[in-house]
């Protein structure tokens, strides 16, 4: 702690670029964390605009605004941008800011590679966005890029493949950095089982990323060679098999689902104890459950493709394995609630989002169990029920956890308290409009409305109108978030070093705002 005060930032470390070059050349984990967070927020709004394009078209049956081809581009790019441009980089931003501060390290292990992994992202994002303007437009094969659709599309598909390659490389480098930092740079005395849970979840997530991003790279490289270099991996006429693409994609895709939620579990596991003023219930079981979920995530992939045809025994295997993931996930939800039990609870915005997360994510978990049942899934495959399910886990799960974490650590990052009133408005409007948007989709799906269609039968009109109203409300509510952040960065009540009275951890022992360099002399953990 003393070291952090003594080296209060700037002068002690010689020349530092200013202006734009500071951000281009920075190797500081806090700068890079900020870059990641700003980037992901920007992509979140681009992806959100695409979503509003989708919902505007679906407000009424019939074609209102877009041709079907462009509608498919909207759904595809919404998915790709939100998954690879918004959610994943946002969590890496949190990792960059928080992991070194939380384990008592002065920076990330590979500071220059850290810069490189961030600066790969903007060109990849440019490729994705620019693909709308090439002949034929952006890829419209769905975010899953299934062959043979993806082997037939125009140059927009090639841009998407290139963008995904670059983003994958960025993710792999980020993961190497995170693993090395956590394993080698912890403060003396901080054993693995004393690490904050956010650090644990990121350690496990980073291993998942390293395991599966190369699999995605392999799949899209095979796509690329099928498209341009005469191979037939996925072309049945040439002896290949389009279903092979689905297996490879989902072997990446399912762990990817956990990559997008495990750090969220970590954030919630930091916040719930703070605002319950109690230690986390069952710390070690949380670590074990996270590891267990990570292992199970590799043996459930074919539940995404029950309808493509597989032996009954295989369907049963993937159904059982999928349902068993509910056990460690249930342990986690139980532990969060047990932490709150008899705690001295207060509901500031981070806690509101964390509680919202637990409640709404659990609904997404339950609909996941419904979909895991093979015969049910065969009915519901590619309907709005699936769309509702994965938005419950990705929006109310990952995104709400990100909001919770942002409000929780903003005072540490900026040195100012955010406007609690704005935070509460943001939470309640998000919570209400989220459910207005996505809850009716369950009913539309159960009634048989297929996903990825610009037009639909008249009986789905009411549900879709409600969803569209909710979506625009949800989108507008996010402007409150931006305003709250800008207001907090520009000023406000001075935050204490330990902003939250119930907070534990090394990050609360450094000043607010956290100085440019922290923990140059590592703290000693007893």
């Amino acid at each position, binding site marked *: 702690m003393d070291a952090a005060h003594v080296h209060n930032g700037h002068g002690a470390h010689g020349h530092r670029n200013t202006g734009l070059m500071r951000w281009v050349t920075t190797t500081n984990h806090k700068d890079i964390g900020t870059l990641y967070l700003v980037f992901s927020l920007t992509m979140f709004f681009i992806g959100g605009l695409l979503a509003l394009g989708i919902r505007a078209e679906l407000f009424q049956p019939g074609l209102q605004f877009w041709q079907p081809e462009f509608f498919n581009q909207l759904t595809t790019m919404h998915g790709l941008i939100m998954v690879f441009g918004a959610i994943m980089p946002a969590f890496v931003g949190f990792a960059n800011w928080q992991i070194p501060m939380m384990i008592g390290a002065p920076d990330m292990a590979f500071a220059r590679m850290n810069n490189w992994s961030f600066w790969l992202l903007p060109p990849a994002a440019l490729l994705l966005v620019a693909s709308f303007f090439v002949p034929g437009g952006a890829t419209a094969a769905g975010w899953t890029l299934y062959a043979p659709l993806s082997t037939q599309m125009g140059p927009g598909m090639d841009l998407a493949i290139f963008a995904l390659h670059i983003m994958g490389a960025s993710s792999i480098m980020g993961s190497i950095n995170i693993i090395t930092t956590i394993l080698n740079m912890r403060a003396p005395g901080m*054993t693995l089982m004393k690490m904050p849970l956010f650090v644990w979840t990121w350690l496990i997530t980073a291993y998942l990323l390293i395991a599966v991003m190369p699999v995605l790279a392999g799949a899209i490289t095979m796509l690329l060679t099928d498209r341009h270099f005469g191979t037939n991996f996925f072309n049945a006429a040439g002896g290949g098999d389009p279903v092979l693409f689905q297996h490879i994609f989902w072997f990446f895709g399912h762990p990817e689902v956990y990559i997008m939620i495990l750090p969220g579990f970590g954030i919630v596991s930091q916040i719930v104890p703070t605002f319950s003023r109690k230690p986390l219930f069952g710390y070690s079981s949380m670590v*074990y459950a996270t*590891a267990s979920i990570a*292992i199970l995530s590799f043996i459930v992939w074919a539940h995404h493709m029950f309808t493509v045809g597989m032996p009954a*025994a295989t369907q*049963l295997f993937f159904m059982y394995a999928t349902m068993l993931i509910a056990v460690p996930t249930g342990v986690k939800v139980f532990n969060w609630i047990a932490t709150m039990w008899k705690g001295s609870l207060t509901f500031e915005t981070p806690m509101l989002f964390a509680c919202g997360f637990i409640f709404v994510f659990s609904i997404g978990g339950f609909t996941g169990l419904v979909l895991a049942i093979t015969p049910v899934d065969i009915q519901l495959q590619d309907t709005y029920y699936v769309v509702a399910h994965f938005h419950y886990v990705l929006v109310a799960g990952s995104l709400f956890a990100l909001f919770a974490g942002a409000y929780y650590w903003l005072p540490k990052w900026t040195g100012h308290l955010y406007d609690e009133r704005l935070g509460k408005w943001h939470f309640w409007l998000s919570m209400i409009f989220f459910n207005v948007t996505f809850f009716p989709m369950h009913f539309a799906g159960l009634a048989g409305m297929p996903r990825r269609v610009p037009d639909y039968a008249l009986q789905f009109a009411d549900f879709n109108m409600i969803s569209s109203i909710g979506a625009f409300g949800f989108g507008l509510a996010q402007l409150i978030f931006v305003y709250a952040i800008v207001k907090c960065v520009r000023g406000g009540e001075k935050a204490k070093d330990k902003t939250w009275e119930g907070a534990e951890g090394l990050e609360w022992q450094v000043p607010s705002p956290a100085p440019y360099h922290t923990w140059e002399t590592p703290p000693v953990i007893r």
Partner: protein
Amino acid sequence: MVVSDPAADPRKATPLQVAKAVLSAFIGIRRRAAHERDLVTLTPVQVIVAGVVAAVIFVLSLVLLVRFITS
């Protein structure tokens, strides 16, 4: 947090102890006393090997169950 038990020989977990630790991790529940004993006696290599073996056994047992049901 690390409790040293003079009676326990450190770094000498039996395979059964490792199996118990890993199996309880699969469910996500572990008694605190047992967990603290694990911290002293288990090595990372033991945990990783046992975890991989347990995952293989888990998959094989599911396969067996499925075969039994579909036969």
